[in-house]
């Protein structure tokens, strides 16, 4: 489970979309084109639906955005003026259309909880999340996949048991507890890693922003000290997220591998005298690549939502905190903007694994 925060495991076990099975070669190109168009259409529809749902949620939520703008001491007159200025007196469909028109022009409006344009905020908070999610997923994959494969290969052996316990602990621990304890141990007591925040204070604002990913920006600037500093800050939260995605990825890998290892071709290969390593990595593992990539993509996608609790504990200025805070303040511009970004990423990742599936899956050929 790669995303322990609020909802259950990410994309858990959502099976890859069933690929079509083109019967005739002639038909294939046409089908592909049509399916591409279909994909694009469903993507657009999904995003539109996403926006509409978010918009409606924002309007029916009993949190009054005007209050955030005018503050606690506002008089009724000030309140009314702000209410109108925000266009809340218009019917909801008009508000939605107006919003859509602005979004299509690339204007996400201004956030009322930060006072900044939403686009500018997103350019700042999303890279922070991307950086954390990428590293977390990387750790999850590097450890989780081998662990899952070995656990399957030696089913019931000690590695399998250890892998199971490791994964179950990962499933079961509240992240804010682990996070604070990790900070206490590795930062407070051992001093091995950097503290809360993305950077040490001396490096704050020292590296010019190119991508927004501090690790990359510091490399671009050739500033090794800044890179090390940023790395020492990201290591702990990323390991934590990595641990949760490891738990999920290793379980899924194990289950995929078990299925392959009981298949006939594996028995045949073994009978033919292929070494166990060849059988496992050369044959079985190659066959689980596609569903595995889907699983990893989904797990990555859910990390991109930003894990609010991790972000709070580590003072990480990511998109999860941003959206949560905005939501609780009724700051719908920020919530909508954030949802569009996260939703687009999710849909794009889905699409990517879908395409990969069609390209790689032997049955689809």
């Amino acid at each position, binding site marked *: 489970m790669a995303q322990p925060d609020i909802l259950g495991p990410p994309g858990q076990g959502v099976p890859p979309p069933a690929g079509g099975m083109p019967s005739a070669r002639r038909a294939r190109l046409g089908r592909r084109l049509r399916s591409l168009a279909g994909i694009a259409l469903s993507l657009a529809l999904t995003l539109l639906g996403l926006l509409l749902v978010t918009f409606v949620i924002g309007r029916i939520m009993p949190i009054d955005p005007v209050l955030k703008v005018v503050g606690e001491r506002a008089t009724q007159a000030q309140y009314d003026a702000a209410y109108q200025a925000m266009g809340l007196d218009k019917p909801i469909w008009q508000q939605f259309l107006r919003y859509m028109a602005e979004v299509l022009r690339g204007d996400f409006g201004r956030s009322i909880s930060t006072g900044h344009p939403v686009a500018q905020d997103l350019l700042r908070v999303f890279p922070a999340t991307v950086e954390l999610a990428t590293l977390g997923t990387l750790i999850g994959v590097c450890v989780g996949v081998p662990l899952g494969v070995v656990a399957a290969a030696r089913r019931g052996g000690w590695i399998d048991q250890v892998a199971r316990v490791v994964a179950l602990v990962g499933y079961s621990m509240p992240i804010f507890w682990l996070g604070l304890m990790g900070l206490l141990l590795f930062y407070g007591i051992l001093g091995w890693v950097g503290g809360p925040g993305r950077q040490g204070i001396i490096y704050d604002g020292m590296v010019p922003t190119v991508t927004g990913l501090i690790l990359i920006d510091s490399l671009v600037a050739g500033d090794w000290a800044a890179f090390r500093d940023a*790395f020492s800050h990201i290591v702990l939260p990323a390991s934590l997220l990595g641990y949760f995605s490891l738990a999920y990825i290793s379980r899924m890998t194990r289950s995929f591998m078990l299925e392959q290892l009981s298949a006939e071709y594996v028995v045949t290969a073994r009978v033919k005298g292929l070494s166990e390593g060849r059988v496992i990595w050369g044959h079985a593992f190659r066959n689980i690549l596609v569903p595995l990539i889907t699983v990893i993509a989904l797990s990555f996608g859910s990390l991109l939502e930003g894990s609010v609790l991790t972000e709070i504990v580590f003072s990480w200025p990511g998109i999860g905190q941003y959206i949560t805070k905005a939501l609780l303040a009724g700051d719908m511009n920020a919530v909508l903007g954030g949802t569009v970004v996260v939703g687009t990423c999710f849909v794009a990742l889905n699409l990517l694994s879908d395409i990969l599936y069609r390209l790689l899956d032997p049955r689809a050929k």
Partner: protein
Amino acid sequence: MQNRFPLRALLLASAVSLAAPMTLTVTAAQAETPADTLVIAHQIDDIISLDPGQSFEFSGQDVVHSLYDRLVDFDPLDLNAGIKPSLAESWEVSEDGKTITLTMREGVTFQSGNPVRAEDAAWSLQRAVKLNKSPAFILNQFGFTAENVDERVTFDGNRVILQLDQPYAQSFVLNCLASEVGSVIDKETAMSHAEGEDFGNAWLSTNGAGSGPYALGAWRPNEAVQLVANPDYWQGAPTMARVIVRHVQESSAQRLLLEQGDVDVARNLTPTDVEGVAGNERLKVLDELRGRILYMGLSQKDPLLSRPEMVEAMKYLIDYAGMESSFLKGQWKVHQNFLPEGYLGAADENPWSYDIEKARQILTDAGITSGTVKTIVRDIREYVDAAQTLQAAMAQVGLTLEIQQMTGAQVLDAYRARQVPIFIGEWGPDYADPNTNASTFAHNPNNADDAGLSQLAWRNSWAVPQEMNQAVEAATLEGDTDKRVQMYLDIQSQYREIAPIIPMFQKIEQVVLQQNVQNWTSGGSVTSVNYRQVTKE
């Protein structure tokens, strides 16, 4: 299995992900922050604007305070000395008490290099009134409106002239001018960024255009504010060349940063964390009395709470001492008057104490033996704990308290709609004059549901007696300070007798600093934080 490859792959992968951090993070533990930089861990996610005409949040005002100067101000090293000249060198009040003329200091420049003129000062006040954002009411109290402010606030040469609608007490007017909404803005710079009729509001929300000791380096919401010293500051360049305020939500995280020497100051430690660092000789704890009051409002719309005996009994169901010595320890002190200590005219009588038997007696005499009331509290630890303590005490006299936790925005929404039976929360003064609290706790000119007022008395549906309303109004006009003090003492005395809005505690801000940080002030009960006088040994 014969082949060992999977195991090796596993170990290699684990080694890569485990060893990389070890080798790369040798520099992680730092001894201290740079000598010319002040680093502060603070919850600053409430900032929504840095425009003095709009900013109304605690952390936002902290920033505004350093970016701008005001006509008059407090001395950060001697807050008790009261109002001192700042950009205005001197002032005089006319015979009838309705005109105040302030003379500007010569030779002061904005950070842009433009001179600070009387025109800038007058324009700053005018625009605050015209913008009509949250803090505008502080100025509007003197009879200014968007329509008349151009005639009422004027300048002449190097003098700013304020024409008030009533002969207000001089201390009242000056105290209001010292608040952040009175900041003097560089008109030329601001107007060059104006969009439509916003007087530069959009631009000033994220930029600074003042003459203050610090310029805005960067503000990344929910992340950090960076201030850079103004080397040409008219009262001398600040010692700290950079001030970095980091948003750190969790007290535990703030404490770890402090203990590791990664920050100089931590401002949001919980009582237990403050106790936890007490033994650390590299750190010191600074207690500073602030102006915020933790109070309990009993809505007079509620049939049970509107009975005077019930109000009286509730005063004895609050475990003041118990809370003060446990979860509020060191950060709130018992204070049962609406004027905070440090304010002109603040009373210091605390007549009520936790007394279940007395409360029971009062209730039985009135024939109240059971009942259910609801409280809506903000999801802040102290409030929720206070509510639970009250819940347990009420249970002992047969009353049921239902607690509902909500987010800040939702509680405020319900409170504004007068739908909170028991409100437990804070009130922070808006400016350094006693009227700021008197006019909200003890003043309610119109108790009708549709009046839409912002007074706490109105929100608790309390029809303030006419003579108390008048007394509060009269106190703003009293020119003699001693008499004014007595008037407030009288109001508070009567208030303690009858009011259903019960002040309970006053805030003490516990700031924990590295030993070498000197001259820190969070602004006391009257103003905001100041950085310019801070030094490091």
